[in-house]
């Protein structure tokens, strides 16, 4: 380490942070548009059409509207908690992007325990939802928040168990290492059951339909977000899209071979294209599921996790352990 390393190092940190934030906002815009357009398609209507070609500028207009809106703070709410909840939800969302390997060279930092880093940061979102639900001092909000905690605590177990199966094969927590281990065969072909369990668990962890009980609009108005307006609401919204992106990136890294794909020129950098293609494919599947399946009931949700997913993933873990040992 010499003096000359100083500036580039600091610049590199700054640059990575800027990139992460660009991805957060870019992803929110793309996902917002995709979701509305695809929802329209599934329901045989055109979706947003008025502003820009095919309504591409609709999101910009909505953004300006949300920024301009008044922030209403309910009189009976816990003022401090009510205000910090959206920040607690949104602020950590950019952090996991620092360790995600988009391509062999495009990665903020190859962290030894990158996988744990992502899981730890993502877990904070539940706390934010709970703070929001309680701070609003509203029955719907509180019910939504309680559901969110029950759901997240339950679905974390099959998720971590399937993750463990993958870790047992790769023998490393480094995301780059996990991707490199799939050079010959993607893990989705080795462990299809784990892939399905993991994907279902991520749907529940990101509060997406058919598991969107924390905000179930037909029964709880908007769940934990009921009292939020303007930017408070949109921060939750952007956080949700970012967590979806991270969940899909994690699925791609663990099961779909990360940046592996047909060879490209300058593959150290350009193979990020394969990564993004796979991630957005999964995101579109998530949207597809949301607009196709009805929401499950809460007892069904819990039964499905504890009676099917947890035993499945436990057996899977056991089988993987035996196979790895042989």
């Amino acid at each position, binding site marked *: 380490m010499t003096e000359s390393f*100083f500036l580039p190092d600091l610049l590199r940190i700054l640059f990575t942070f800027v990139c992460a934030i660009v991805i957060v906002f870019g992803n929110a815009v793309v996902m917002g548009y995709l979701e509305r357009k695809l929802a329209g398609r599934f329901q045989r209507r055109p979706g947003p059409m008025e502003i820009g070609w095919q309504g591409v500028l609709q999101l910009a207009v909505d953004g300006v509207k949300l920024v301009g809106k008044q922030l209403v703070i309910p009189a009976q709410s*816990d003022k401090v908690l009510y205000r910090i909840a959206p920040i607690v939800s949104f602020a950590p969302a950019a952090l996991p992007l620092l360790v995600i390997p988009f391509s062999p060279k495009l990665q903020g930092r190859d962290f030894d*325990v990158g996988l*744990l880093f992502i899981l*730890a940061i993502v877990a904070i979102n539940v706390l934010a939802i709970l703070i929001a639900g309680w701070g609003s001092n509203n029955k719907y909000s509180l019910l939504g928040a309680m559901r969110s*905690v029950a759901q997240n*605590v339950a679905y974390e177990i099959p998720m971590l168990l399937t993750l463990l199966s993958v870790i047992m094969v790769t023998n490393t927590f480094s995301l780059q290492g996990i991707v490199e281990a799939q050079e010959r065969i993607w893990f989705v072909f080795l462990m299809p059951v784990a892939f399905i369990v993991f994907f279902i668990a991520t749907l529940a962890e990101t509060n997406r339909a058919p598991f969107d009980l924390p905000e179930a609009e037909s029964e709880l108005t908007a769940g934990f977000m009921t009292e939020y307006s303007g930017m408070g609401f949109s921060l939750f919204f952007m956080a949700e899209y970012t967590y979806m992106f991270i969940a899909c990136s994690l699925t791609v890294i663990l099961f779909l071979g990360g940046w592996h794909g047909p060879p490209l020129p300058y593959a150290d950098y350009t193979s990020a294209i394969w990564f993004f293609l796979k991630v957005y494919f999964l995101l579109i599947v998530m949207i597809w599921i949301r607009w196709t399946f009805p929401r499950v009931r809460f007892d069904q949700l819990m039964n499905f996790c504890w009676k099917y997913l947890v035993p499945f993933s436990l057996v899977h873990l056991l089988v993987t352990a035996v196979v790895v040992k042989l």
Partner: protein
Amino acid sequence: MILYRYLAEAIFLGFIVLILFGSLLTVQARLLMHAVLGLAVALVGVAGLYFHLGSPFMALMQILIYVGAVCVMLVFGIMVGQTPNQAAQLRLSSHNLALGIVTCGAGFVLLTATVVRTQWVAAAQRVGDFSMQHLGESFIYRYCLAFELISVVLLTAIIGAIIIARSPQERNQS
């Protein structure tokens, strides 16, 4: 390079302030919700200290486990306790005050004595090995006692939760 050292020192002090702030929040809060969230802040500060000491694995495990624990604690507070937005009464009789001072003093003396008397040896090397094999072996061989003790703590917590969560009718039946 000097700047880096200053930055590291500043971050270290930041974590200390975070821990103290969180602990104060926990102790002086009149609402259960605020107290538990203060605890969460203090725990994040401790995780930061682990990170600062070069043990990211511990730091991340701390966040991963305690965030979930704090959430569950809050839910328990909402479900089985008094209403969580009922401010706790200050019950500071002279008897309680004396007891509190004695306990805190004893704890402080014990901790200080240990800190002063321990000879701090810098770790000979940093273990950068996070493979399943290494982690498993350390849990089963080297830190076996601590590992087993933790499971006893967890067992106690589970039994305590069941006892608190039982409805009054069930309690009368048994």
